[in-house]
């Protein structure tokens, strides 16, 4: 064994200069980034990966890895990735965004990328709220959940129920697209889902989307145990695993 150093507990592709990170204590996104790094290491794709990040807490990862990272605008990591991938087809292109970027301001780009089967991977972090701005209601906020803009709990009859992004995207995505949901509550499964998604981009030249349920202790105002308790509740509302197509398959061929 090598003499332990500060990078001992880090994926190899992680940029140690970004540590200590800009993320809050207990941040779920940091867990996701670490596992993304682990997959990049195990798939041996560090030298061909490009990460496009959105606005929201994902912007804090602007120097997180030792591969190219470009910070885009809110909801725009998908179109930047699409343009980049068209120009550099051999790269593994990953767009990282939050649920606000993916399902509110950037939804039409996400849908159209899936519809066209653009060969990029969209990773969407779902922590049921807007975190960077201090915990406002998102499409993914679950019924009765309290946020700063749903102080009495989200009223589903006015604001809609829990927004199921992968299930929606699946309806119009190409049949070759890989669409799944993972959770920071199960990092091993998260690794295998991210791996499948990246392989789908590389081997099938197809669109992939992985939503990852995550925790936000700062805005949820929860400690470690409470954070994972709420996450377990979310996993019941938002089922983890690959999302299969439910529409008649023929409709795609018309």
């Amino acid at each position, binding site marked *: 064994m090598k003499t332990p150093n500060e990078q001992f507990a880090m994926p190899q592709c992680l940029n140690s200069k970004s540590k200590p990170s800009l*993320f*809050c204590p207990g941040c779920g996104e940091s867990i996701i980034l670490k*596992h993304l790094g682990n997959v990049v290491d195990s798939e041996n794709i560090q030298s061909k990966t490009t990460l496009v990040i959105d606005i929201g807490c994902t912007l804090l990862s602007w120097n997180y890895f030792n591969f190219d990272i470009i910070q885009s605008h809110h909801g725009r990591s998908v179109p930047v990735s699409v343009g980049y991938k068209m120009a550099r087809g051999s790269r593994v292109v990953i767009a990282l965004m939050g649920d606000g970027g993916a399902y509110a301001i950037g939804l039409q780009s996400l849908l159209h990328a899936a519809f066209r089967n653009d060969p990029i991977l969209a990773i969407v972090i779902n922590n049921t709220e807007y975190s960077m701005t201090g915990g406002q209601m998102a499409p993914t906020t679950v019924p009765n959940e309290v946020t700063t803009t749903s102080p009495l709990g989200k009223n589903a009859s006015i604001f809609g129920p829990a927004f199921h992004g992968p299930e929606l995207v699946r309806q119009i995505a190409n049949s070759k697209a890989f669409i799944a949901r993972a959770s920071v509550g199960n990092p091993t499964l998260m690794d295998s889902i991210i791996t499948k998604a990246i392989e789908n981009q590389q081997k099938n030249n197809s669109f992939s989307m992985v939503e990852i349920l995550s925790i936000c202790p700062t805005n949820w105002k929860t400690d*470690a145990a409470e954070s994972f308790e709420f996450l377990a509740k979310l996993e019941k509302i938002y089922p983890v695993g690959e999302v299969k197509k439910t529409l008649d398959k023929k409709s795609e061929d018309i």
Partner: protein
Amino acid sequence: MKNDVTKIVLAGEGGQGIQTIAKILSLALVKADYFVSYIPQFGPEQRGTPSVSFIQFSKSQITYPKFDTADIVMVLRRRAIKTIESYIGSKTDVLFDSSTIARQNFTLNNSRLFAIPATKLAEEEFGAKNQNILALAALAKNFLDYPKNALWEIIAEQLGKKFAKNKSLAGKAKEAFDFAYDFSLESKKFTKAEYDTSDSLIVKKNSQRVAVIVPKYCKGCGICILKCPVNALSFGKTLGVYGTPVPEIDIDKCINCGNCYRFCPDCAIRVVKK
């Protein structure tokens, strides 16, 4: 520029309660019939960078939220010094936490340095969460001469919800407040910064495995402790980057399941087989 304005900078790590005491201090000054201005420093991060607040008070209207040089600077963590050092002038009174910051951490030549070992006192006597109350009480007494009871009333009102949930916290907070209000600030002999973030790795070994903990990355979230299936982890004495305790590992209890590594958001812990 009016010279009857008193300008204060409060700084520490995110999550340390800097903004909480800034709000309390502002309210206290409002109650004392001053015109007050308070603004936190804003970046895109919620917690990842030092937390800073700017307070001004005066007998007349204050017009602008920021200033160049402070009359009083309070700084509770080493990492925050860099962020606020430019606000310290030759006449600025500086109050710092001598248990987390050593004298030599200040690069400037300022003789008006005063200290209270807030973190040490909190860790050893009053509970870790009360370090900001200790600092606030010392600041209010020594630099503003704010009446003791009036200040406590505002603290009790502002932290009422927290205190209602946790009665013992309330009791400890009052003890910390009383102690710090009457504490004679250190002005020459600063104690060693024994609660400073540890720069060195913690390595624990036995014949089967090696555990490594990196305090300067650890933010004390406690997720590794929660996820350890055999209770081999618990908070220890060493402090991490935010001045929160870093976990300790009982290496013989550990079964090397990998959960702590898998769940740690900050790449601060890992156990491997020998």
